[in-house]
């Protein structure tokens, strides 16, 4: 190993992805061109809920340049029904049967009904206009109230109602006792609005079925090639071995691009039927309308508190709107339940939840999928502080756990080892100087200016502490193959599918350090089911620990194997081998060093090394997450609200985050900033809005669905804490989701604080300027 000062790990090494991406020479799925390739477009439902009574594709089939028009019924015959990608997270939950395209009914605006395949996307869209679909309108189920109404029309007849899961009350600790002992009870109904991922690159596939070999090759924008492959194989009823999924550069996803989407399956089935490659690149209106949306939960919360600000107990009722084709949304309340105590010493908890189906886009994972647990908790803490006229920071400090002191476990079971919320709160308190801010706030108010300070803290299982009997990693252990090449470079094959996380840089940094070669001599190969090891792919803030860890251990194993081979060449012992400047030598005899490439060649040449070492100089490593651990941090925002226009200006935004050992500070900061930007967007700009009567989707363009641009995001001051090493080697923790989890409560808390002279109580997450003026009473609610 090199000495610490020369290590790549911990340095802001420039991203190896950047030259190609920044010069426009990356290769995205949209750049894939295959001979004879055709273009797909979908006829989509204009209604939220309707029965399909007729589909006439005659005119569309006649349009010159149109190769095929496949109805939902026709595609149903070519594919296997099932929840597909949506079912990935919903094992054990009731799951309606659904077809790849809509057959009997349409269940949301944008539901795909007919697939058109043509010589160009333009022609395909022209033909879509010629398809005539007859609908018999049904009442749209849009709000939670409508979904809970037993008299409402069931969206899936086979489920009988629009309630997907009703989970009974679960209790932890003595809830009744806590409420009986409480000095006060703080109640709130909290609403988390629906918003969505909006990656810069929409979804897309190029599907190519080879009639000769019977093999399907799919180029996809996906977070994991193996999971996508399983999806294609299952719904096309093909052996896994006959499906190959490849992915190149990906322009973001945030949880959206997991598995094979319904549109992807339709294109693959059409390619198999036609024997020609078919490309579907989702456009922005399809993406905004039908790709999937997230959040959309409501909570009734009661907090039993003491006059000193201790949280004795919580009662939580959650309703989640899973949208039309249920998937992740059904299991999400379980995750919220588990995490809702967070890093606090909450005495008792009762939790119950209901998941409902509505005529809206399906609930998908979005950066920190169960972030509502943090939003609800951090909002409640500020409401408690308000009730007690205490400083919100103080309420947090009184309740937050201290490392090494009881409780050592969350009320809901998870170990709290290594949680550093208190440290990050202390750090933020020092950076902000709360007392000085309160003085400035009072002076500003005297001049009619409204400043507010908000802070909030979170922890995320990234990957989570080691559980008894298992590693720290959710979604299983992580594998990696590493190979020494004949030119002396190291190739790393990972199942990670980076889509903005920079794994081609970070995994190389770690492997370079551990193996002992320069950074630019490690190549990270991703995105091909034929060559990368099995694995989930990238998601859940797990790759820093899981892939970082396997890169470290794998490089160590490869180095040992190289030394073993070299030892044979030198007729010495592996323990005496030394690696320096790209060559291996017997320690103390550097003059006789053998270049790494030569060692790889020796292994390839028969007879130079024992049979069991012959062949590729390659290792397969597996890592279970080691001791794992929590990532977390505290954010603070200082805002000014213009109470005449309702506009919010963020004067200062501060982050104290702890993701353990930093692999690459610049990349960590990029992840934090991106997350914070999405959190700011959620509160001030982004909402997936539906008309509550017709179910029409109202946010289907970028004039309606507003994402933050560089102009809306303030400078973000970031402090890194690297508090607790738990593992001998691997103390990297995930950081991808944190910013998005914690920025919304931070900002909501700051806005409420700014408006406290008007008695405003913020119980919703989305606070556009119009809403702010409604809350302060400057304008009336429109009828």
């Amino acid at each position, binding site marked *: 190993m090199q000495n610490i000062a020369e290590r790549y790990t911990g340095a802001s090494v420039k991203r190896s992805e950047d030259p190609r991406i920044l010069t426009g020479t990356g290769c995205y799925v949209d750049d894939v061109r295959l001979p004879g390739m055709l273009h797909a477009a979908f006829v989509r439902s204009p209604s939220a809920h309707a029965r399909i009574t007729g589909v006439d594709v005659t005119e569309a089939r006649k349009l010159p340049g149109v190769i095929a028009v496949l109805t939902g019924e026709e595609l149903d015959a070519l594919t296997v029904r099932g929840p597909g990608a949506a079912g990935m997270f919903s094992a054990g939950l009731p799951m309606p049967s659904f077809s790849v395209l809509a057959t009997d009914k349409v269940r949301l605006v944008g539901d795909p009904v007919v697939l058109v395949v043509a010589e160009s996307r333009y022609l395909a869209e022209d033909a879509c206009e010629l398809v005539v679909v007859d609908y018999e309108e049904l009442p749209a189920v849009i709000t939670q109230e409508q979904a809970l109404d037993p008299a409402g029309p069931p969206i899936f007849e086979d489920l009988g109602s629009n309630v997907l899961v009703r989970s009974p009350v679960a209790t932890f600790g003595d809830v009744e006792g806590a409420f009986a002992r409480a000095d006060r009870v703080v109640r709130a109904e909290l609403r988390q609005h629906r918003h969505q991922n909006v990656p810069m690159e929409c979804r897309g596939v190029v599907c190519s079925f080879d009639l000769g070999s019977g093999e399907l090759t799919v180029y996809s924008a996906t977070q994991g090639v193996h999971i996508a492959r399983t999806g294609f194989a299952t719904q096309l009823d093909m052996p896994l071995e006959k499906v190959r999924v490849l992915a190149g550069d990906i322009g973001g996803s945030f949880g959206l691009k997991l598995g094979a989407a319904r549109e992807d399956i339709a294109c693959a089935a059409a390619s198999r039927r036609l024997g020609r490659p078919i490309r579907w690149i989702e456009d922005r*209106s399809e993406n905004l309308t039908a790709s999937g949306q997230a959040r959309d939960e409501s909570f009734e919360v009661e907090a039993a508190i003491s006059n000193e600000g201790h949280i004795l107990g919580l009662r939580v009722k959650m309703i989640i709107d899973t949208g039309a084709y249920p998937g992740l949304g059904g299991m999400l309340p379980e995750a919220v339940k588990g995490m809702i105590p967070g890093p606090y010493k909450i005495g008792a908890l009762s939790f119950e939840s209901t998941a409902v189906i509505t005529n809206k886009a399906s609930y998908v994972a979005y950066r920190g999928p169960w972030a509502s647990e943090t939003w609800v908790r951090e909002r409640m803490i500020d409401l408690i502080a308000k009730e007690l006229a205490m400083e919100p920071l103080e309420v947090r400090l009184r309740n937050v756990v201290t490392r090494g002191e009881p409780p050592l476990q969350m009320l809901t079971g998870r170990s709290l080892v290594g949680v550093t919320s208190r440290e990050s709160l202390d750090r933020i308190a020092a950076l902000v100087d709360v007392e000085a801010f309160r003085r400035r706030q009072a002076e500003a108010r005297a001049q009619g200016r409204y400043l507010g300070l908000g802070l909030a803290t979170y922890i995320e299982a990234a990957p989570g502490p080691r559980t008894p009997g298992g590693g720290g990693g959710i979604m299983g252990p992580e594998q990696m193959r590493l190979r020494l090449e004949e030119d002396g470079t190291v190739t790393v094959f990972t199942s990670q599918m980076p889509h903005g996380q920079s794994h081609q840089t970070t995994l190389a940094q770690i492997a370079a350090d551990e193996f002992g070669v320069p950074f630019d001599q490690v190549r990270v190969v991703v995105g091909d089911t034929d060559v990368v090891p099995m694995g989930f792919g990238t998601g859940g803030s797990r790759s820093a620990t899981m892939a970082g860890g396997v890169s470290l251990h794998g490089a160590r194993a490869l180095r040992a194997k190289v030394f073993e081979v070299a030892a044979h060449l030198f007729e010495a012992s592996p323990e005496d081998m030394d690696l320096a400047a790209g060559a291996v030598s017997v320690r103390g005899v550097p003059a006789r060093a053998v270049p790494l490439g030569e060692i790889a060649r020796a292994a390839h040449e028969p007879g130079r090394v024992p049979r069991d070492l012959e062949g590729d100089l390659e290792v397969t490593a597996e890592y279970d997450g080691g001791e794992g651990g929590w990532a977390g941090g505290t954010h603070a925002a200082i805002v000014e609200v213009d109470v005449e226009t309702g506009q919010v200006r963020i004067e200062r935004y501060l982050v104290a985050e702890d993701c353990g050992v930093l692999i690459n500070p610049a990349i960590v900061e990029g992840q934090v900033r991106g997350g914070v930007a999405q959190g700011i967007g959620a509160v001030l700009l982004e909402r997936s809005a539906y008309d509550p009567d017709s179910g029409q989707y109202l946010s289907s363009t970028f*004039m309606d669905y507003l994402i933050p641009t560089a102009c809306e995001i303030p400078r973000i001051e970031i402090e890194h804490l690297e508090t607790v090493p738990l593992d001998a080697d691997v103390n990297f923790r995930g950081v991808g989701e944190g910013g998005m989890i914690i920025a919304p409560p931070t900002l909501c808390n700051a806005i409420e604080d700014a408006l406290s002279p008007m008695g405003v109580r913020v119980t919703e997450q989305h606070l556009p300027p119009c809403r702010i003026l409604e809350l302060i009473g400057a*304008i009336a*609610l429109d009828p």
Partner: protein
Amino acid sequence: MKPPPFDYSAPTTLDEALALLLEHGEDARPLAGGQSLVPLLSFRLARPSHLVDLAGISELGSIVVDDGHLVIGAMVRERAAERHDDVRLLAPLLAQALPLIGHPAIRSRGTIGGSLAHADPAAELPAVALLLDAELVAQSRDRGKRTIKAADFFSGFFTTALQPDEILTEVRIRRPALRTGSAIEEVARRHGDFAMVGAAAMVRLEDGKIADARVALTGVSDIPVRATEAEAILEGAEPTDEAFATAAEEAAKSLSPPADLHGSSSYRRHLATVLMRRTFKLAAQRAKEAA
């Protein structure tokens, strides 16, 4: 999001362009900077079968000063106008308004004529034209030139007095009188977005009193509107904060702005009040400084 098929011509003279419009009638559409028309095509909300690109017609691309008037060719890019000294000198309100349109990349393509002809009620330039009593010159192959006052030009949501065979060729703006100040302010969800509401005001002072006050609003109706009640209240008044507030509040009473996702009707009315007050004040201050 791909447009339906269309034919495309790129004439190099106004005559040619006018002939094409006449020939194709209602099916043809002039294409200027494309910043509004191209999205409409991609959403298939506009379906002209023939696009007549005006970009190659050099006679539409100049800014000249003529008899105390600033004359801006329809195809002058918004960004070019914004950077032009004569615009700053002779039409300061226009110069203040232009940077509020979108982002520089959009203004480098978008044109003065395109924005006026498109007549988005949320757009800045129609309101500015209205406030400045601009004259819009239209030309057709059959009927030649005519001049339309801004007050007669905007007839409804995205509709103007232009006939399908007409091209807007230039806009003429009279230089402001002495001791006149102007200001424009707006509230948009994001930097560069179409504003929810905007107010442009002009105040002329004489002997310390308001001799002429004007205000035009965007986003409160299907066309840009002058708030004449406010103007009447202010005429002859002292330029005080109270006077501006009263005028703004009175004028806002008669507004019933449209609601959308970004803001309710009440919100827009409220914004109109706030922005009228703010812009009157700023315009009066500038008028004083100009004296």
